[in-house]
């Protein structure tokens, strides 16, 4: 335990030393993403909003028992899920795509994972900020004190996907199959997570099955303050914290174990 705390501390110090690499990598990448578009960064705000509008329209037409404020329900779950999915889907490439750097110069491997997580988080902030504001303007829900928990839920989700990205990144260096399997798994997990539908709409025995899906807990804890205006159940929050710490710890251990070996397989 003690030595793990030391490892984390050391890793943070190293990352702090290379903080400007992260800064310039993330800022250049964000700039690049919207460079040739007329309204630039607004796309990251507008894009998801329009996307959820389309999905909302289609699924509220399809679903018979449509719930009130379906849009708010949909986007609060989907935006948060997409943050996690974006990091996870890019996880396998986190070392492979940085081969050029890894082979030429010493950089801490966790730096590449941090860059990925940070970039997606910033994108998420833009899109979710816009969506939350739009929801308030269109009276989909009310601001409540329970929103104060949202940053912490995001923080735990970040730890969770950081760990997963470490594991996926290392695994993919050894088994290049991962990047073919993963999008399918993520596609399935999107539908297995109550984002388009409410968990109550499922038959009883399926509801139990959904509880085996880790994303369920993250999405529920993030959605509850926004959609219901109340804090998520403590048990759900506990599971979120547990899963995040577990993933973070395992991810970091895997990364440290393979830190010096990855380079030989790239």
């Amino acid at each position: 335990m003690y030595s793990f705390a030391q490892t984390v501390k050391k890793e943070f110090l190293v990352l702090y030393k290379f903080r400007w690499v992260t800064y310039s990598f993330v800022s250049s990448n964000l700039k690049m993403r919207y460079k040739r578009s007329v309204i630039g960064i607004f796309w990251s705000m507008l894009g998801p909003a329009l996307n959820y509008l389309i999905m909302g329209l289609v699924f509220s037409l399809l679903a018979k028992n449509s719930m009130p404020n379906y849009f708010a329900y949909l986007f609060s779950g989907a935006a948060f899920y997409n943050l996690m999915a974006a990091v996870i889907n890019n996880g396998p490439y986190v070392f492979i795509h940085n081969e050029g750097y890894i082979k030429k110069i010493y950089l801490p491997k966790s730096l590449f994972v941090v860059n990925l997580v940070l970039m997606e988080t910033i994108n998420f902030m833009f899109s979710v900020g816009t969506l939350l504001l739009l929801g308030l303007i269109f009276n989909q829900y009310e601001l409540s004190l329970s929103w104060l928990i949202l940053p912490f839920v995001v923080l735990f989700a970040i730890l969770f996907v950081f760990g997963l990205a470490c594991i996926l990144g290392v695994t993919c260096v050894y088994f290049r199959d991962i990047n073919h399997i993963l999008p399918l798994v993520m596609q399935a997990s999107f539908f297995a997570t109550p984002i388009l539908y409410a968990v109550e709409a499922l038959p009883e025995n399926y509801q139990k099955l959904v509880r085996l899906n880790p994303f369920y807990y993250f999405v529920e804890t993030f959605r509850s303050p926004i959609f219901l205006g109340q804090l998520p159940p403590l048990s759900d929050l506990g599971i979120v914290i547990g899963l995040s710490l577990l993933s973070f710890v395992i991810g970091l251990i895997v990364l440290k174990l393979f830190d010096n070996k990855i380079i030989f397989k790239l």
Partner: protein
Amino acid sequence: MININNVSLAYTIHHERSHSLKEKMINLFHKRKYVEQSEETFWALKNLNFSVHEGEQFAIIGKNGAGKSTLLKVISGILKPTKGSVEVNGSIQPLIEIAAGFNPEFSGRENIYLNGYMLGFSREQLKAKEKEIIDFSELENFIDVPVKYYSSGMSVRLAFTIATSVEPEILLLDEMISAGDAGFIKKARSRMESLVKRAKGVVIVSHDLQLVREFATRAVVIDKGELVFDGDPNQAVDKYLNL
């Protein structure tokens, strides 16, 4: 400044580099190997011992595949030795072919910063160096253009200039890095010379035996990962020629 203690480094060679999960799975279930397990351990460096002292211009020579570049990577920390240890006192920087590290979508200026930070510069240092780098690489009009639109000469000039803006106490050189057109090569040479002069110690890997004779104050010869000579550069070159 640099102590190499009993350093060995093993590569695991995979004849098929990307092992698929399928093969692994099938191998799990079959007693018989489905795919010929084609792993073998190759010792690129074998039990090396030497030190580089302050003020030395240290050359590493050897045939192709002798392990010279691997050794340089071990010294710079990119590769960790399988056995033994490397101690380095002082800041160390390999002069690398940084063009491989360019992100083609980023502008020249963005690449200066990204690569500069990777080389360990602070924000203030880079701000101070930015103009000098742009001037020296003669890219005033193109610096905000994505590097993918650069001619090969332009990106070589930029890469060279960034790579040579470092001011390490110990400088590591792998061969001579390329420097573009004739006019630039002259400029580049004097920039290299002043870089070498400022460094407290230089480690160079080279095939240019003339350069080793003139430049080095000490040389080691490496053959098949083993140290076969350590001492006077002229004797080292002779030893190398008789390998």
